[in-house]
């Protein structure tokens, strides 16, 4: 008991010292939008002001100049190295899964599966960066004509369904072998993945948007009930991304302090649930309503803070939209 809570306190203490002014109960703040519309007399005037990046009469307006694209080189490089390490660990977890299946150990297989799935989520790969490989590894059958019986349904969730719905362990061996091959590809691909600055900045909130939309709703891992654990892994991936972006975010507007506050509060909300369930992540349907409300709500607040990241880290002023008339004249 005591040894488990000490590291948590140390973590909390470090976070508090780092950003939150030492308050025992961090205050929520509301991040100001980079472009305020207060003071504009009409929507059209606000849009014109944004396009021209000028200050409005009362001093509101964009305060932040755009970042150069090269500012993202180091954060993305650090992310690729981090993602590569997660993929390496995932390969080991999939191998362990294969061994558990071969020795007829369903309980061990489920545990190995959970670790492998969590590792994949810790990569934080989202939004087309991995394309078909993502579907092969993490796809769900909702869009397939024959659903769970469709031969195109493969990867982690095919295996998940078998492990939790009583398929024979032997029948899952070929799917696990295929997953192992895909993870070998993943280890290569993820270290070289090209991510545009805007896409990377968007990842800061989209990893957890996925969690709220798909994992906490039960859609992403419907048979194991692993949505809460998946969300915790998504939080880890988000922390990794934010840590790479910290040098860029520091001092730019007031985007970072609310993020740190909400990361802390959300982490605590998750930990409270895990402690209440004996140190293990409960299945979604084992959580109480109050636990759901706290986790869902804290995640929502964190997402509101994270949503400011793409705008804060823009690399260009909003480009002026050419008018139809000007294109007619040109063409």
């Amino acid at each position: 008991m005591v040894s488990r809570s000490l590291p948590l306190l140390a973590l909390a203490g470090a976070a508090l010292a780092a950003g939150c002014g030492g308050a025992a109960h961090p205050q929520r703040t509301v991040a100001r939008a980079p472009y305020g519309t207060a003071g504009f007399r009409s929507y059209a005037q606000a849009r014109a002001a944004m396009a021209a990046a000028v200050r409005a009469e009362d001093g509101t307006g964009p305060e932040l100049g755009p970042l150069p694209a090269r500012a993202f080189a180091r954060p993305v490089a650090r992310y690729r190295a981090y993602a590569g390490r997660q993929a390496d660990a995932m390969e080991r977890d999939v191998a362990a899964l294969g061994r558990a299946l071969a020795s007829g150990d369903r309980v061990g297989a489920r545990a190995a599966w959970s670790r492998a799935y969590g590792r994949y989520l810790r990569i934080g790969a989202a939004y087309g960066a991995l394309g078909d490989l993502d579907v092969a590894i993490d796809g769900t059958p909702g869009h397939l004509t024959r659903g769970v019986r469709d031969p195109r349904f493969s990867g982690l969730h095919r295996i998940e369904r078998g492990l939790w719905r009583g398929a024979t362990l032997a029948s899952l061996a070929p799917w696990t072998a295929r997953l192992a091959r895909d993870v070998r590809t993943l280890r290569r691909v993820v270290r070289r993945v090209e991510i545009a600055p805007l896409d990377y900045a968007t990842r800061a909130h989209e990893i957890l948007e996925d969690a709220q939309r798909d994992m906490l709703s039960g859609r992403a891992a419907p048979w194991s009930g692993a949505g809460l654990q998946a969300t915790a892994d998504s939080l880890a991936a988000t922390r990794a991304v934010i840590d790479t972006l910290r040098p860029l975010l520091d001092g730019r507007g007031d985007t970072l302090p609310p993020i740190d506050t909400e990361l802390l509060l959300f982490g605590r909300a998750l930990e409270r649930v895990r402690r209440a369930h004996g140190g293990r992540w409960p299945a979604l349907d084992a959580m109480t309503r109050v636990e759901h409300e706290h986790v869902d709500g804290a995640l929502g607040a964190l997402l509101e803070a994270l949503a400011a990241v793409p705008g804060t880290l823009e690399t260009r002023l909003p480009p002026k939209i050419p008018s139809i008339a000007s294109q007619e004249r040109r063409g």
Partner: protein
Amino acid sequence: MSLDRRAFLLRSAAVLGTGGVASATTLAAGAGADAAPSAGPGLATRIPFDGPHQAGILTPKPAHATFAALDAIAPDRAQLAVALQALSARARQLSQGASALPSNDVDAPPADSGTLGTAIAPDALTVTIAFGASLFDDRYGLAKRRPARLTRMEPFANDDLDPARTHGDVLLQICAGQRDTVVHTLRELMRPLRGALALRWTIDGFESAARSPDPAGSRRNLFGFRDGTANPEVADRALMDRLIWVQAGGGEPDWTGGGSYVVVRTIRMHVEFWDRVGLREQENMIGRARDTGAPLGGAGEHQDPRYDVDPKGERIPLDAHIRLANPRTPKTAGQRMLRRGYNYHRGFDAAGQLDQGLVFVAFNQDPERQFATVQRRLDAEPMVDYVTPVGGGYFFAPPGSKRAGDWVGSGLFAA
């Protein structure tokens, strides 16, 4: 058989009787407690039920709707036909306005719920009836008369269809100016259907209010954008014959002429996520400005987007929703369909996120040539992250009932 039960059957027969025949509750003599609706033109608006085409297709959209998919449980074809006859009769009666004064027998359950009072105002009510592919299986011997292009809706690339909220043997689209009219109508229509048709899924819809200074401005969907801007013109009869109405003889069974295929898609919108996306990104995903609805770079909602002067998508991205849905080329002109959808809002999901979105409804002459072709183009749009289709189905709306005494679907069951 007791006296009471005989009397009940007689009364039921009267209520089920063909429209226009006075029943125990339709005599309008004298005033009831709510006799003459004193509200404005809205409640008095009457859309004819009978005609070559069903009402509720070209009809302007009123504020409220409910969609009810039903499964046939009738023991045989004859009883299914009786139920569908009663359905049309009751729908005609409600949509044309009726008196709901109580009968003489105060011990009898009233023939109408009374939720709209003693005078049922028409309130622009339309009831549009459509059949799903499953009705044409081997249960009722209808397989040989299936509309040629009616199939079971297969999931598209980003769908997550819930079987419990998808498909159905029969679809009812009930639209009216007031919400209580719509709720009353579904409840009353179910009465003659008991034992023949059972509810499979329902969803309520609402139209956003007219808030634009421009009376021709389209209403907004729950992404905050105007929706329905580029609908084909319903007053253009030749166009409707090319895009909406099935033509008798075009490879279709005779009874389908004047009908139309109804595509319904219940599309969940992830609105909390959407609300955290930058405005410019939203507008680029749609292809229009959010405030005016103008195509990006344009000034007014109904302006042509002029993709021809924007070949590289520097103004309206090549994968913007409106550009993929309707590229406005001669080749894609035949893919346009008549959209008549409603917003929906129905609670929240297991992650505490609002369950709201769009009941997409489109009328097509050929769902494969039109809807499915367009949807496959849209499978690659960036907006897919913010929406999840979860239900709906493909249905066929038969031609209209020709007159009082006729009923929607009579051609299908004709010997």
